[in-house]
């Protein structure tokens, strides 16, 4: 093998892709050729250097955050597949480990209906311990099937949906069935909540064919020793 052939097969040699016979011939050549030997050494060194270029590792809790997101994606899928949570799912949630509070509205996109009225006007009080999930169930009573509606949850700065850290808005497409449609929101309060004095709202906005309805929950929060207390008040909707 000569120098030109060696240069031609240089990369295959470094990558270990040469047939044993060619490899042997190349090694025989470089044992007697300082120039080709140094060329191979340079290339090998460069390849080693490439592998040692430093990388910044992921931030703390990276894997846990993704796994939590997956968990909440499972919930979102149930919404996507079935429009909203089914009654049986809702019943199971009621019997589960989490406390679930229900607020119920009547929703219609009919032009005849000028206001969308909360059917449950009483406020519920939820105690939120920072960084722990509390499920709040919203119920939407629809007089008819509403296909391909767009659902958007708009959150205040101090409340997040589990698995969606830092997100102030979440949006997805869903259909409403006739009757009660349940939506469980796994809410998490952030530390900021204790210092929050102004009035805050969680808004569920349903849009359909260019029209939209806002369903608001007023949050009245106060700091407790163990965490925070939020009073959730369903209010009349501004369309």
């Amino acid at each position, binding site marked *: 093998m000569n120098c030109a052939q060696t240069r031609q097969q240089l*990369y295959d040699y470094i*990558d270990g892709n040469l047939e044993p016979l060619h490899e042997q011939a190349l090694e025989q050549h470089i044992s007697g050729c300082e120039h080709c030997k140094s060329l191979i050494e*340079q*290339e090998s060194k*460069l*390849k080693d*250097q*490439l*592998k*040692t*270029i*430093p*990388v*910044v*590792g*992921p*931030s703390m809790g*990276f*894997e846990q*955050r*993704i*796994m939590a*997101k*997956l968990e909440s*994606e499972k919930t979102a*899928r149930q919404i996507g597949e079935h429009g909203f949570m089914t009654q049986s799912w809702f019943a199971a949630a009621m019997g589960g480990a989490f406390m679930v509070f229900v607020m119920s509205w009547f929703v219609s996109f009919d032009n005849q209906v000028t206001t969308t009225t909360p059917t449950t006007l009483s406020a519920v009080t939820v105690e939120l311990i920072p960084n722990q999930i509390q499920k709040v169930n919203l119920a939407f009573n629809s007089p008819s099937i509403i296909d391909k509606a767009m659902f958007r949850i708009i959150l205040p700065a101090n409340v997040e949906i589990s698995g969606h850290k830092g997100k102030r808005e979440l949006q997805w497409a869903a259909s409403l069935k006739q009757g009660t449609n349940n939506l469980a929101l796994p809410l998490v309060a952030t530390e900021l909540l204790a210092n929050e004095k102004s009035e805050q709202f969680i808004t569920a906005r349903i849009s359909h064919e260019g029209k939209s309805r806002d369903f608001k929950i007023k949050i009245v929060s106060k700091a407790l020793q163990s965490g925070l207390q939020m009073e959730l008040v369903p209010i009349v909707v501004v369309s």
Partner: protein
Amino acid sequence: MSILNALKFRRPSFEDLIQPHLKGMYYQAYRLLKNQSDAEDLVQDFTLRLYKNKAKLHEVEHLQSWLYKGLYRQFLNFIRDNNNNPLNNRDDTEDNDLESSAYHGYSPELLTEQEMELSRVENALSELSQNHHHIIIMHDIEGFTLAEVAEIMDTPIGTLKSRLHRARANLKHKLVMEPLSPNQCVKS
């Protein structure tokens, strides 16, 4: 069936399959994006997208390269979207600048000669064209075979082989051509 048997024959869940690859995918994403937060977002978005077709995961034979292929597609979409968004471009540049200076601490007196060489290699690598940059990351750094890279990049193996040779030659050219490389410095 006993509980042990039931556990033994339980089909691995999506989470079981994906979790061991999350960190690996992050490093792959980081090498492409050079930004921790973007790399984390990319892996997260990709994992969530994958979850929507989770049944596929059970059919995949070589999961690592299959995941990289999907991640690479997601990365190409990400940079395409970011290039279309001037706000994102501006933010990314700032983040990159801050992060790279904070991480590398490019204060000449703090860098050893070896570190300087590595930072030269890194800079030269980032100056390569996208295709050359990516093939070196995948083949020379991540260690995928050319056949695997062909699958990931959806490009014939012959094309990739000559591309890899050109990429390496370009990289070397950039390193040699760079002014004030350690070997060229004149010691007083």
